[in-house]
C-alpha cells in the first residue's frame, strides 16, 4: 500500500473524475454514487482522490479532527482554547479518506464503549468509530450494494445531518461527522434500494472504454505503474499538483460565484420538465453547476455548466422505470434540448 495510483494519471472516466472533484469543492453537494462494470477503475479513482485533497488543520489529539478556527464542536478533549476560542495546539493532517470495509460491524462504524477502559478503570469512555475519523473528509464504501441495509440507512442519515448520535451500552454521545459519502458498486451484483438513490448528490455510471486506443492506454499506464510505482508517481507529479491547486482555488471561490437569474430559471424549468421530485434535485443541480463553474475558472454560473452536470445531478432522481433501457441520461438530454433550445 505504499504508492497510490495518481488521480491525474487516470485515463478517461471524465464524468467520474469531475464528480469527485466537484464533491471535494463543495461538500454540500452531498456525496457521489459510482456504479459500473468490473475493472473500470472505480475504486482506483476514489482512492486516488486522497492524493489530491489539500491538507487540513486540526486540533491536536482531537479524534474528530475539529477545526481549530471554530469553537469546539465535539465536547471532548479539544477545549484548550485561547480567549478568542481558537485552539492552542494544532496539527496539519491530510484530508481523511476513510475506507469502510465490507463486513464492518456497527460498533466500529458509529463508535462504542471503550472496553479496556471500562474494565480496568470502571469508567465509561467513548471509543470513536469510523464516522469520527471521517469527519471533515471522505467516507468511501466499495460494494455499497452489498452493505447491510441498516448500515446504509445509518450512514446516509449521518451524512445528511452531519452529526453522529450514539446511544448504546449506556453511552449517550453526539459528535460532528461531516463527510462526503462516496459509494461504488457493480449493478450486476445487486442494485441499491431505489429509495436510497436520491440521497446521493451525484451519480455517475462508469463503463469500459469502447475506444481501443483508450483501453490500451489504460493498460499501458497501469503496467508502468505496477512496474515502478515511484517513478510513475513522479512522472505525474506535476499534473497532480496542478489539479490539486485547481481544487484549492475552486473551493475558495465557489461560495461567492454569482448565479444569474436566467441560469436559475432555466434549471428550474429543466427539473420540472423531467419531473424530478422535490427541491433537493434543484438545489443539488445548482450547487453542482456552481462547483463545475468554479473548477473551470468561470466568473459566473452559465447554462453550459448546468448542461454539463445535469445528468449526474438528476439522473438518479427521476421517477424511474426500471425497465427503461434508454437510461436516464438520454431522457435528460432530450429534456435539455426541449427546455434550453426551444
Amino acid at each position, binding site marked *: 500500500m505504499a504508492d497510490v495510483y495518481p488521480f491525474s494519471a487516470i485515463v478517461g472516466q471524465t464524468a467520474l473524475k469531475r464528480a469527485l472533484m466537484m464533491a471535494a469543492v463543495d461538500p454540500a453537494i452531498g456525496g457521489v454514487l459510482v456504479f459500473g462494470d468490473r*475493472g*473500470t477503475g472505480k475504486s482506483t479513482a476514489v482512492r486516488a482522490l486522497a492524493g489530491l485533497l489539500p491538507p487540513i488543520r486540526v486540533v491536536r489529539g482531537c479524534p474528530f479532527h475539529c477545526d481549530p478556527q471554530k469553537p469546539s464542536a465535539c465536547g471532548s478533549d479539544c477545549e484548550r482554547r485561547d480567549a478568542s476560542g481558537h485552539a492552542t495546539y494544532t496539527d496539519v493532517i491530510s484530508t481523511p479518506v476513510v475506507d469502510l470495509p465490507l463486513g464492518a460491524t456497527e460498533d466500529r462504524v458509529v463508535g462504542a464503549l471503550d472496553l479496556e477502559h471500562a*474494565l480496568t478503570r*470502571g469508567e465509561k469512555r467513548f471509543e470513536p468509530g469510523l464516522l469520527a475519523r471521517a469527519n471533515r473528509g471522505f467516507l468511501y464504501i466499495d*460494494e455499497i450494494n*452489498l452493505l447491510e441495509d441498516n448500515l446504509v440507512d445509518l450512514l446516509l442519515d449521518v451524512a445528511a445531518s452531519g452529526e453522529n448520535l450514539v446511544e448504546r*451500552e449506556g453511552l449517550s454521545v453526539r459528535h460532528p461527522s461531516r463527510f462526503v459519502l462516496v459509494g461504488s458498486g457493480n449493478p450486476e*451484483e445487486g442494485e441499491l434500494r431505489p429509495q436510497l438513490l436520491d440521497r446521493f448528490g451525484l451519480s455517475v455510471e462508469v463503463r469500459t472504454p469502447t475506444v481501443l486506443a483508450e*483501453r490500451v492506454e489504460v493498460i499501458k499506464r497501469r*503496467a508502468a505503474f505496477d512496474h515502478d510505482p515511484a517513478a510513475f508517481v513522479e512522472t505525474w507529479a506535476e499534473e497532480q499538483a496542478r489539479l490539486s491547486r485547481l481544487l484549492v482555488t475552486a473551493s475558495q471561490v465557489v461560495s461567492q460565484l454569482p448565479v444569474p437569474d436566467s441560469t436559475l430559471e432555466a434549471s428550474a424549468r429543466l427539473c420540472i420538465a423531467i419531473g424530478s421530485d422535490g427541491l433537493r434535485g434543484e438545489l443539488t443541480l445548482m450547487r453542482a453547476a456552481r462547483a463545475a463553474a468554479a473548477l473551470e475558472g468561470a466568473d459566473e454560473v452559465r447554462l453550459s455548466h448546468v448542461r454539463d452536470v445535469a445528468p449526474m445531478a438528476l439522473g438518479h432522481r427521476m421517477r424511474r422505470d426500471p425497465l427503461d433501457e434508454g437510461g436516464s441520461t438520454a431522457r435528460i438530454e432530450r429534456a435539455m434540448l426541449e427546455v434550453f433550445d426551444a
Partner: protein
Amino acid sequence: MTSAVAPDPEALWTDADLIAALLSVDPAGLGGVAVRSGFGAVRERWLGLLRARLPGHAPVVRIPIHVGEDRLLGGLDLTASLSQGRPVAQGGLLAACHGGVGVLAMAERLDVTASALIASTLDQGAVLAQRDGLTLREVTSFGLVALDEGADETERPPEGLMDRLAFHLDLSGLSHRDVAAANFTPEAVETARRIYPSVAKVDDDLIDAVCEAAALVGVSSARSCLLALRVARVHAALSGRLTATAEDASVAGRLVLAPRAKHAMAERAPQGQQTEPNEEASHEPQPPSSGETSETASPPDLDETAARDLAAEMIVAAVRAALPDAFKLVDPSGRASAASISRSRGGGAAVKSALRGRPLGSRPGRLKPGARLDLLDTLRAAAPWQKLRAAGEDAGRLRIRKDDFRIRRYVQRAELTTILVVDASGSTAFQRLAEAKGAVEPLLAQAYVARARVALIAFHHGEASLLLPPTRSLTRAKRLLADLPGGGGTPFASAIDLSLAVAVAEKSKQRTPMLVFLTDGRANIDRAGQPGRQAADRDALAAAKRVAQYGVRALFIDTSPRPQAGADRFAQAMRGSYASLPFVQSDRLADLVAREGRAVMS
C-alpha cells in the same frame, strides 16, 4: 462442461501443468486460478504439482466454503481477550495465506459478500476490516485457487472473483489416465522465480497487440489484459528470457484470454437461438489487424506496425485455437441439466439455522442452546457495573450477570429467485404470447423493487432453453423477453425439467426459488424430443410431480383463452397454485406472484 468438441486431453494436461508452474512463480501477482473439476485424482494431482512448486515455506491454506467472516478476516481471540481483559485480535485465514496460496473449496457456491471480501483483500494486498471492536490491518499477498465443482456453465464462482484470477482452468474433461508426467521441476520454477523480477516491462507494441487481441475476442475487462501481460512476463521467466516476446504473449492469450472469451460469448449469445455462437472470433484474423487498427494507432513506420500486427495475429490465432467451434451454454434440451440434479445435492429445502447468515448486531437475550454469545458486547454491557458489583467481594474478577448477555442475531438472507417459464410455442397464439409478455413486465418491475432475482426460461421449437440465468439485471430479462420469437412444438416436460434444475441450483446457493409457468399446458413434445401428445403429456405430468418432490413452490398460470377442464392438473401435480390468465389482469398477476412469493418466504 458440455462443450461440443472435447478438448484434446494431452494438450489440456500440458496447459494445466504449465499453469501450475506459472502460478507458483508469482501466485499473488497472477491472482490465482479457478479450477473446474469434480473432486478426484486429477484435481488432487494438479494441486500436488502446484504445492511441490511453491517455495518450501509457502503456506497452502484451505478455506472452507461456509467460513464465517470472523474466520476469514480474523477477529476477537476469545480466550486471550478474557484472560487479558482487553480485546486481543486473532488473524484470519486470509492473513494466514500470506506468501502462498489459499485453496477455496466449492467456490461456485461462494456468496457475493464473501467473494467481495476476498476480492478486496486480493486487490489491496492486505486484510482491512473493522469488526469485533478491532481494527484489523494485516498485509497478506497470496494467490487464490478456487475449486469449482459447478455442474454447468451457469454455476460458477462469482464473476467479481473470476475477473481477478488469471487462469480459468477446466479439468473436468480429464480422466486420471490422461494425467502425464510433469514438464517443470521445482528447481526450474525456482530459477524462474529468481529471474522474474528482472524481466523487463512488456514493450508498448506487445501491449497494443494483447489489448487488440482481447478486444477482438470480446474480452473487455482491463484486468484481463493486465493479467495476460503478467502471465507473458512470467512465461518469459520460465523460458529463461528477460524480455517477453510475442510467443509469451500468445501463451498468455491462450491461457488467460481464451477461457474469458468463451464465457463472454456464452453470455452474449444465449443458446436456443440460431445465431452463430462465435461470430466474432470466427472471422479471419487478417482484416482487423490491417484495417481497423491503423485508424486507432498513431502512424508509426511500416515495419513497426507490421511487427505488431504479426504479434496481435499470433495472439488472436492462439486464442481462437483454444476455442471450440460450436459452443453451447447448456444442453438446450435440458436433459443434461436435468440429469445434473441427481448429481447436485438431494432434495428438500436448505437447512435454515439461526447461526448462519449475516450478522445483525446483538441484543440482550438468554443463553439457550443454539444461541451465540456476543462476547464483546456482553463485556461492554457488564463493564460499567464492575465497580458496583465488586463492592464487598474480592476484586479482580469479572462479574457478569444474566442480563448482560448479548446474543448475536443473524439474518438468513432469504432471497427470492423467480424463475419464469414462458411458453412461446405455436400452440400459444402470437396474441397470447404478447399478452403473456405484457403480464410478465409488471412482475419484473416488482422484482426490481424487492431486489429479487429473475431467471427466464422459454420453450419453443421443440426446445426449452435458459435464456437468462438468475440475475438482478432486469433490463436484460426484458430485452430477451421482447425479442422472444414464438412457434414450434411444446416441449413442456423439458421446460419443467430445466426449470427444476435451475431451482435446485438456486437452493444450493441459499436462495428460495419460485417457479412461475406461463403456458396453456398443451404439451406435444416428449422428453425424448419426439412429437406426440400423449407421451408429451405423460412426461410433463411426471416432471411436474418431481417439482413437488423437490419442494419447490410453483405457480401455474394458464394462458389458454378458454381454460379446459383438468387444466389445473399440472398445478396439482406440482402442488402449486393455479390461475387462469383471462381472468387475471396483468397487474393483478404481479400481486398474485408477490403473494406467492411472500408465502414461500414465510
